[in-house]
């Protein structure tokens, strides 16, 4: 394995095999990105169908049953299978470069995490073709889902169980990577903000996903194996599901929004050409948000009847989260303040993000007021609120970062002009869709209804909202076209594409070789690349080691086979309540495949391989011409 084929065109089969077996964080990052984009498009399409249905009163574009399936799959897909993998894509692509590592701590687990997520997602989407999708909302409250006929909820439970395991594995991997693999000199308080927020987001995954796993497992055995956790006639209690789900569900919001904060904390200093204002308070605020994120889950359950004491405590805790979030907002504004601002596409997403996200935060504090929440609960006000947070906060971050990091990920640039067009169409469409929904909610329109009667004052507002949704759809379509156009554009073969890069990922020449930095860089302060540029270092970085052999991990097909084993077992479990004879054998075969792969992995030594010094030099010359990466 020590010889390295470089620069040669590979056949389709070899390329495919390469991607199925890869453990390279950059390739896995791209795979996460495109898988996330695929599910983002599917879930967006579902949203468009819903908005078309609600465009006019008494519409019969989709049936009530299909509408329930659409709203369930839209929410589930967007949160678990679109936003999470898109952010994991950036984490994979950027974090190891930002900390100057060769790869993540557990490259094998990184690949396993991706394949579990992907096959779990595919399993969930098979429900559309195999007798109906889940239809109890993305929260899937047990009182509804326990009695939902058909296999929809079973697909939800099993699909999320598998993809959730993948997410948990990836989370553990990133925590360990950031703790142990930092380059010399990269102390915790010199870490870029995106690395910090990735660390915190992974820590939230670590503590938030087990309750979901447990809740899903209870639902699984209740529906498929006759257990009685949620069946009140047998002594069960459906409120347990609500607690477990929201102990997971609320931190999940922060799991998604913290990396988004991190991405903007990278984008804004680059284009304001100023050090991030209040770095240590940003770190502190990130940790505080992560901690408080676990203290507030019951604000989703104010109307469940936990009593005034519980409601008051959770209301106050929820309002407290506004403080660290406000710190972050002020720090971003003060970073821009007095900077020499360059308005590029990533920057304009950042500028659009700040007011949109603040609007979502303010309505959040309104709902934290428990008595008011009794009025707002289950109305369109809630829909407007969380879309302001998720689209205004997370999706703008993903789009902005797509433009920002495209040069590092693909050695191409996205078109700036088209980028601005996309931004304005999407941004106006977003506010058109959701701003007006606040008022729909205050006027009493409940969420999750498939139609409504005319002449309640809702007709015009719903129509406007649907127009906005179509604009968002056009915006996303144009963004995809922009990505496709970039394939045709010239390779950049440059470093520091935006000219004002500050952290380590900009110090590396694109295309990034599979071993990342040929010598591990020495970090001499916060914004290490900026420091080197200020001192006129032509080589990019000061290095911590001489050029030598590089140790890299081996690729493996086992993660894919392990995930396929789980995928097969899930089909067995799915059909267990149907009294078919083959369900238990299929479960055993599927799990057997997975366990066999684990044993193979344990019994076969995997020591990785070395890229020799001469091969590194040859590779650098083939990528960057004579003299290599200077």
């Amino acid at each position, binding site marked *: 394995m020590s010889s390295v084929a470089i620069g040669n065109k590979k056949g389709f089969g070899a390329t495919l095999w390469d991607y199925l077996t890869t453990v390279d964080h950059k390739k896995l990052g791209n795979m996460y990105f495109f898988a996330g984009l695929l599910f983002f498009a599917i879930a967006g399409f579902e949203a468009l169908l819903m908005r078309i249905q609600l465009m006019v009163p008494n519409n019969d574009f989709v049936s009530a049953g299909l509408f329930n399936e659409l709203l369930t799959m839209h929410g589930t897909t967007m949160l678990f299978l679109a936003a999470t993998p898109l952010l994991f894509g950036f984490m994979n692509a950027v974090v190891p470069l930002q900390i100057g590592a060769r790869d993540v*701590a*557990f490259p094998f687990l990184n690949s396993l995490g991706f394949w579990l997520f992907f096959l779990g997602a595919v399993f969930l989407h098979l429900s559309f073709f195999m007798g109906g999708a889940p239809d109890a909302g993305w929260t899937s409250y047990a009182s509804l889902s326990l009695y939902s006929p058909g296999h929809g909820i079973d697909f939800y439970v099993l699909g999320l169980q598998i993809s959730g395991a993948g997410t948990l594995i990836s989370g*553990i991997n990133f925590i*360990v990577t950031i703790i*142990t693999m930092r380059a010399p000199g990269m102390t915790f308080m010199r870490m870029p903000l995106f690395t910090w927020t990735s660390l915190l987001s992974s820590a939230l995954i*670590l503590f938030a996903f087990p309750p979901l796993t447990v809740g899903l497992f209870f639902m699984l055995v209740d529906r498929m194996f006759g*257990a009685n*956790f949620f069946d009140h006639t047998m002594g069960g*209690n459906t409120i347990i599901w609500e607690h477990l789900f929201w*102990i997971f569900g609320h931190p999940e919001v922060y799991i998604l929004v913290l990396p988004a904060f991190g991405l903007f904390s990278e984008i804004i200093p680059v284009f304001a050409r100023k050090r991030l204002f209040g770095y240590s308070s940003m770190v502190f605020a990130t940790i505080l948000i992560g901690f408080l994120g676990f203290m507030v889950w019951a604000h989703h359950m104010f109307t469940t009847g936990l009593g005034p004491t519980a409601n008051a405590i959770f209301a106050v805790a929820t309002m407290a989260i506004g403080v660290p979030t406000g710190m972050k907002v002020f720090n971003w504004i003060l970073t821009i303040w007095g900077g020499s601002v360059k308005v590029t596409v990533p920057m304009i997403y950042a500028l659009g993000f700040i007011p949109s996200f603040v609007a979502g935060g303010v309505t959040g504090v309104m709902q934290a007021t428990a008595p008011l929440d009794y009025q707002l609960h289950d109305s369109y006000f809630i829909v407007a609120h969380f879309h302001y947070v998720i689209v205004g906060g997370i999706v703008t971050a993903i789009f902005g970062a797509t433009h920002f990091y495209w040069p590092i990920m693909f050695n191409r640039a996205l078109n700036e002009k088209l980028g601005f067009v996309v931004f304005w169409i999407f941004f106006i469409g977003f506010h058109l869709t959701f701003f007006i929904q606040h008022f729909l909610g205050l006027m009493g329109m409940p969420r999750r209804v498939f139609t409504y009667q005319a002449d309640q004052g809702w007709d015009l507002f719903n129509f406007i909202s649907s127009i906005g949704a179509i604009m968002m759809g056009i915006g996303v379509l144009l963004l995809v076209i922009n990505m496709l156009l970039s394939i045709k554009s010239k390779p950049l073969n440059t470093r520091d594409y935006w000219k004002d890069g500050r952290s380590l990922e900009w110090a590396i020449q694109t295309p990034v070789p599979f071993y990342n930095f040929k010598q591990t860089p020495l970090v001499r302060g916060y914004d290490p690349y900026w420091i080197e540029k200020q001192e006129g270092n032509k080589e990019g970085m000061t290095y911590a080691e001489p050029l030598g052999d590089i140790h890299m991990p081996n690729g493996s097909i086992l993660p894919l086979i392990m995930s396929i084993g789980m995928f097969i077992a899930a089909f067995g479990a799915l059909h267990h309540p149907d009294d078919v004879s083959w369900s238990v054998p299929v479960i055993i075969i599927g799990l057997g495949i997975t366990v066999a792969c684990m044993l193979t992995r344990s019994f076969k030594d995997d020591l990785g391989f070395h890229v020799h010094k001469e091969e590194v030099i040859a590779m650098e010359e083939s990528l960057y011409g004579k003299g290599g990466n200077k």
Partner: protein
Amino acid sequence: MDLNTKFTPQSWPDHAEQATMEGKNKFVGIWIFICSDIVLFASVFATYLSLKDKGPAGMDITAAELLGLPLAFVMTMLLLTSSLTSVYAMYHMKNYNAKGVIIWMAITVLLGLGFLGLEISEFYEYTVHEGFGFTHSAFSSSFYVLVGTHGLHVVIGLVWITGLIIRNIKRGLNLYTAPKFFAASIYWHFIDVVWVFIFTVVYLMGVLG
């Protein structure tokens, strides 16, 4: 990493389990994994406590009359002792005594098997003789899932340690195998700690309160 490097007890590093980057990653990784497993068990414990003694109208089985302490005491002793023997194994690992590691790990597995056997016989007793099956009531479901999740962890630990013994019985210790033994022993201690909580919450509080 070179597997052929020969060590003597003198040249063997103080913290062999963390002497390489991979070892350090494994060491940190198993601790991080245990953090998430703690939350998993916490969720199941909370559910058990809220569903304890709950069942369909007229159910007459309660924890106080179902559960017995003598068997649970023997199981606790077996598992606690197995934790001690895995400490002996790690003591020999630190002193570069491969034979000691294998022997004490094997004893750990035997004690773990004893625990598992008693647990299975306990479950058999409850389901067959007491009519307290998995689908009997909310109480039975939560009892079997809580104790069973721990049992599943024991099974995984046994397969893991047995695999390590079989794989390394001939080749002994080096900087590649030491972290593997160490991670397995940390995991085994964790299982033991969880059992202490199960003994307290399910058995002691079940029988006495």
